[in-house]
């Protein structure tokens, strides 16, 4: 913690404290207006409710049950083998959470089943749900090459793309997601009717619920990736 002493205060500037506080707080209005993502309100509202107090015995039983529930998946299922194959710039990995700085890239191997390249300030959480490997992409780009037969999904706030033996890229934007199937087949799902898209050579769509996915067309064609990149990821699948 810094020892720095703030001197932007009413005392230091010799201004009556109420006048100083009311006026300085108005400076907050000078910054460009940004709206927080709607999911944040859901998160905050969900955090309001405190746990109801439980009798001691019930608390003990609940804790024991929770421990068993939490430990069972760990005992019965091996941890998701996540390996950093290469990186450029600042990459932070904590458990299954990965964050890359805007100029950085991280190339991750996921249990020999998939190779994932995160870039453009990507934030993602990679976890296993039963047989499914799920990449929750909060921000940035995720280019995936997936071995056929692997249950693998990239989920965004606007829908998800599930691999059916494929190479594909997903970009999480502020109001929509961009998905490009580079080769193979993808299952798109979200708050819209699920459907498959397939391509031998790149086909891209935007997910902006509640509308069904719309072709990206000229505005999104081959955004953020190239054939060379997807080929190199596919080659890595044999690591």
């Amino acid at each position: 913690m810094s020892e720095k002493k703030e001197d932007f205060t009413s005392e230091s500037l010799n201004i009556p404290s109420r006048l100083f506080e009311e006026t300085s707080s108005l400076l907050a209005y000078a910054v460009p207006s940004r709206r927080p993502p709607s999911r944040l309100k859901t998160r905050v509202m969900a955090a309001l409710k405190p746990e109801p107090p439980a009798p001691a015995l019930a608390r003990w039983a609940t804790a024991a049950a929770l421990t068993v529930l939490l430990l069972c998946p760990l005992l019965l299922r091996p941890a998701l083998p996540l390996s950093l194959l290469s990186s450029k710039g600042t990459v932070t990995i904590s458990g299954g959470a990965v964050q890359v700085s805007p100029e950085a890239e991280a190339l991750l191997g996921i249990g020999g089943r998939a190779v994932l390249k995160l870039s453009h300030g990507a934030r993602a959480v990679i976890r296993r749900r039963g047989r499914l490997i799920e990449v929750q992409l909060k921000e940035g780009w995720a280019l995936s090459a997936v071995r056929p037969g692997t249950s693998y999904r990239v989920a965004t706030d606007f829908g998800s793309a599930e691999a059916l033996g494929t190479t594909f890229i997903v970009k999480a934007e502020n109001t929509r997601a961009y998905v490009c199937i580079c080769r193979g087949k993808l299952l798109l799902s979200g708050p819209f009717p699920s459907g498959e898209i397939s391509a031998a050579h790149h086909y891209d769509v935007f997910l902006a619920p509640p509308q069904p996915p719309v072709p990206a067309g000229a505005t999104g064609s081959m955004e953020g990736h190239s054939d060379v990149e997807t080929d190199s990821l596919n080659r890595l699948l044999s690591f």
Partner: protein
Amino acid sequence: MNPRGAETRNHDREAAELVRRVGQGDEEAFSRLYDLYSPLLFSLAWRMLGQQAEAEDALQEVMLHVWRKASSYDPTKASARTWLIILARSRCLDRLRRRGVVSRRELPMTQEAFDPPEDRVMAMGEMEQEELRLRVRAALKSLPEPQRRALEAAYFDDLTQAEISARTGEPLGTVKTRMRLGMLKLAELLRGEEKS
């Protein structure tokens, strides 16, 4: 009476009432308070911290603090708006100081800050806030540039007067005088409009 001043006071009264109800555990009031103030507090957090993810975390921390501590809010000491902003800035300063280094984006008050808001339909409370935003920007714009920059550096970037002095090469006394005059002028411009 200036209608804009009256609107601002109505808005302040609504905010104070909402905080009072939040203090009694009223989730609906909390939801309304969040809708009214989260864009402002989030914008401030993003400006100070320079990262969306951290700004989101800071906003969540602030709003949960409001939920837990709203009953301790004293309307005789500060308006609800001021209380919320001070709380948000203080949380952001804590985060900046925990980082130890100034790795945040330093965004001077350039044209971007004065650009008009995007065109979209706004709710009543938002319109009042947007109007206040325009007034604050206009008032800031009318300050001499050195005064404005000194205030921004202190308020948003957590720079001390000595740090600003070192950065600008101006004597410490000059920096202090600029900040004081800037604050008084700003108070006069913004208060004068409400009182007229």
